[in-house]
């Protein structure tokens, strides 16, 4: 049985696509002359906040040794339990970390470790390019933590430490 289709008559100025196309293209061509907003990553990098919390860095003293004194506060405060620390003693009888490892996969980047550190040794970094060829590469040992050079997070503005 044939189906009867009701054909509604519409005015041409409402159904013509030409007008809409012209309107759309006008908007498109207008953008050619506007300022460009696309960031050309990786040649160009977007600025990140001074409080960005990325993968860790261990700061060192003038002699190149890690500032860490193995006090054990960061593994204690870490909510993700990603820091492994074994304390030891060096030749001068000073306390220092024999083993200091951070599992960056487990880390939730809360920044508590930096906040709690009494020696300002461990820092979260202003850094986000973290690819590795193996999962094991994401367990950063002391050597890796001290040799990294990326800038570190500023928990507060040094000009205005109390945020007044």
């Amino acid at each position: 049985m044939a189906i009867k289709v009701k054909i509604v008559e519409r005015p041409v100025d409402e159904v013509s696509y030409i007008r809409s196309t012209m309107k759309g293209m006008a908007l498109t061509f207008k953008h050619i002359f506007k300022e460009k907003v696309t960031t050309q990553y990786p040649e160009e990098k977007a600025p990140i906040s001074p409080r960005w919390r990325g993968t860790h860095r261990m700061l060192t003293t003038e002699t190149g040794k890690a500032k860490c004194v193995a006090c054990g506060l960061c593994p204690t405060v870490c909510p993700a339990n990603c820091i492994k620390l074994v304390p030891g003693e060096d030749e001068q009888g000073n306390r220092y970390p024999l083993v200091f490892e951070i599992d960056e996969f487990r880390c939730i980047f809360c920044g508590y470790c930096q906040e709690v550190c009494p020696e300002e040794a461990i820092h979260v970094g202003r850094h986000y390019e973290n690819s590795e060829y193996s999962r094991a590469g994401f367990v950063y040992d002391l050597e890796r933590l001290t040799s990294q050079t990326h800038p570190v997070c500023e928990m507060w503005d040094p000009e205005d430490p109390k945020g007044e």
Partner: protein
Amino acid sequence: MAETKMVSLTIEGRAVSVPEGTTILEAAKQVGVLIPHYCYHPGLPVAGVCRMCLVEVEKAPKLAPSCATTVADGQVVHVHSDKSLDARKGVLEMLLINHPLDCPICDQSGECELQDYTFQEGRNDSRYREPKRFNPSEDFGGDIVYVPNRCILCTRCVRFMDDVAHDTVLNVSERGDRAVIGKFEGKDLTNVWAGNVVDLCPVGALLSKDFLNKARAWELDRAASICPNCTQGCNVMIETRENQVVRMRPRPNEEVNAFFMCDYGRLNYRWMNERQRAETPLVKMNGKLVAADWDVAVPAAAKLLTGNRAHIVASPMLSNESLYLLTQLIDTSKGAGVFRVAEGEEVPLPGVEDLALRRDRAANVYGAEMLGFKKTNDVFAGAGKGDVLVVVGEDFDGLDASSISNAGDVILIGPAMPNWIAEKAAVVLPTTNFAEEEGTVTNLRGRVQRFSQAKAAPGLSRPTWLVLGDLLGAIGKQSQFFLPSDVFGKLASSREEFAGLSYDKLGFKGLPVLNAKAGAA
């Protein structure tokens, strides 16, 4: 003796009645008010030098040091009034003038009374801008290192050495802010009881070299236990980090060790972490020991025991529960039970009645003797031809293959397994060591005390009482036990000396057995 007169007073609005002569500080403890203090320690004579325990007593002209003030009828004491809080805040500020800010590297951090009270009652910041006094740290000999910068001169250590250990080694040298704890010329803290000054020190000034930089106080897991290193049976806390025993500290028990323990016991914990040991049940098949399941190994051992006389070599480190199950094994097989014990010099602590590092260096010598085991030097001598030799918990120190030449089959039950005995053994049943199981031991005064599990055992090893219970079950003597308290219940019901005792009644302070020898022998 005349009836002790009771005195009623009010502390922090709480009425309390204590015997005459009690100090305010001790009375306050009874109503649950801890008055901060440094120089006072219940095990030492009162000095009253730290001024930390100042409290306000109504109608008294000035604040009273509560450690040295005895209670009086009708006294009204305010511990947390503005006046006393202010005084203590002042004391803390003075103490912190020369105290270094090195909590991150200080071993006491986390269990430091200076930290605790400063956090509770002290100032938030320091008003002192001048450089702090500095003295290099000093080795005090023995196990102890002294860090003078952290010292608050409470003199607990000096009083312990003078009045409790009766070995005058320490003094307060210099005067005023130069004062430090010094040691007399030519003397060292080598006294066997000297290690207690580390526990007594409220700050991190006296530290144990053995524990130095090993762990932080808050990382440790603690288990109430008994020191297994001599027959005194000092109550201790076994403290572990990541399943490794890192130190033992005394647990107060007025009846046994007061607040102290000796260095021999304190430092002799490494055997609890021993890694070279039996971990899987082994059964001899075609002349070779092969790993087997518990379900195979226990019946194999039971088969060897049926119909044969058993010569049982027990260890005096075993709990009463394990020894009791062994006596059942002796009864069934008409055998004999012997043990040997390492001996050393007896070193008493003069300031505490009936406390000494005892000659017999094992936990349960008295319990083993009470349950009918005989002490001997040559433990294997009694084993006749064809006897089954059952060696339980023995450490094999100083023994070798030649000593067991005439025995028949050997069943080895225990944590230690040197190669020479493994070659002879027909069945090996690995068990946990003292720190890895639960049970009771009886000290030389006949006091039964509980110890609890401090760490997990490696491999497939099982608690000794469980293995022995299963073995007896396989022989057909009795049903299985599921808890050490069940074994103890059986022991209490079948042995007159233990009658009426149970784990609940013993608590963690212990109780003497019936007709226990009292006092100094």
